[in-house]
């Protein structure tokens, strides 16, 4: 008697474990963040942004011979500690792994009273790189890839962002200095990381290219979810909420 034909299972792609699975709405496992402005939102990359599209590459070469994979493992584990003080990164419980959602709390202009609550979805992670995608409402619609590689005897650490300001207000802010502040953020992050692994005087090489000068007017309605507007309204109404809290406390 002939047996049933044996069907070979399709070979799993080499990158299968590195990519997140699609989700309709984001959800996070972060504990302790002051605000969650991400749960229930969709991820939005540079395809869904409004403003001009920029590709930014920041690189720093590390002194001494270090394994690029070891640097990457350390970077993933200690990622929040390298951020500038104007921003806080709340890592998900499982760390930086595909499908996890981290929360961010940041001051877009250092010293200003306005704070943004937002987050990122980890869309890709392997031993050499990981990539974040922003949620709807974030100032930038972006993919940001963090990678390490060996160039001869030297380990290079790189951040590469492909980003568009999400809506017309964000685009204006980006043109009026946000672009430069954003670059400084990543430059400072890489300098901190490089010093942490023993590079005494790190030099960050920055390349900024506008890859699409066209604005995507069909995404002008991203304004509805703007974290910029929500954060400004929240800041403006803070004194009123403070007084209301005092009154409630007395009653």
């Amino acid at each position, binding site marked *: 008697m002939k047996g049933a034909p044996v069907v070979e299972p*399709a070979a799993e*792609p*080499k*990158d*299968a474990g*590195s*990519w*997140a*699975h*699609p*989700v309709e709405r984001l959800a996070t496992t972060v504990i302790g963040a002051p605000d969650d402005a991400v749960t229930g939102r*969709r*991820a*939005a*990359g*540079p*395809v*869904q942004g409004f403003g001009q*599209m920029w*590709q930014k590459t920041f690189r720093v070469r590390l002194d001494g011979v270090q394994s690029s994979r070891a640097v990457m493992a350390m970077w993933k584990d200690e990622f929040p500690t390298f951020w500038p003080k104007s921003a806080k990164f709340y890592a998900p419980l499982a760390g930086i792994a595909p499908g996890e959602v981290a929360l961010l709390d940041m001051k877009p202009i250092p010293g200003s009273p306005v704070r943004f609550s937002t987050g990122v979805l980890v*869309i*890709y992670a*392997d031993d050499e*790189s*990981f*990539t974040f*995608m922003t949620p709807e409402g974030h100032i930038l619609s972006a*993919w940001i*890839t963090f*990678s390490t590689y060996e160039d001869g005897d030297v380990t290079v650490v790189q951040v*590469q962002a*492909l980003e568009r300001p999400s809506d017309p207000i964000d685009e204006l802010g980006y043109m009026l200095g946000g672009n430069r502040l954003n670059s400084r953020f990543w430059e400072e992050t890489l300098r901190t990381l490089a010093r942490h692994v023993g590079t005494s005087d790190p030099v960050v090489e920055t390349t900024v290219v506008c*890859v*699409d000068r*066209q604005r995507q007017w069909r995404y002008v309605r991203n304004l509805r979810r703007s974290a910029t507007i929500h954060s400004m309204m929240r800041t403006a109404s803070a004194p009123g909420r403070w007084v209301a809290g005092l009154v409630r406390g007395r009653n």
Partner: protein
Amino acid sequence: MSDPGTRVEVHPTDDPVTSVVAIFGDVTTGSEPALMTAFGKAVDGGARTIVLDFAGLEYMNSGGIGLLVTLLVRAKRQGQRLLAVGLSDHYREIFSLIRLDEAIGIHVDTSAALAASRS
């Protein structure tokens, strides 16, 4: 630095303004020279619609996705249209995850893409 794991071929179709760019192996940041050269060859041959055939795709990282977006921007700027065929369920999921399927039309095969390009 080019990715030696990438191979790209350009094929004409019955439609003189549509070409197929078939991608084999890996798509990473290092695939840029091979992919952009093939794209340029297709456009120089008069193609207004480029069908990216991913049936031979074996590996793609996030750098490869960034490269596809750069290609999309270039095509848009030159008034060309990008379509995708031959995506396995896995890569179709990735296109959905990163919402690239909102910008690049996905079709089952080249004949379906050709029909769409004529519409």
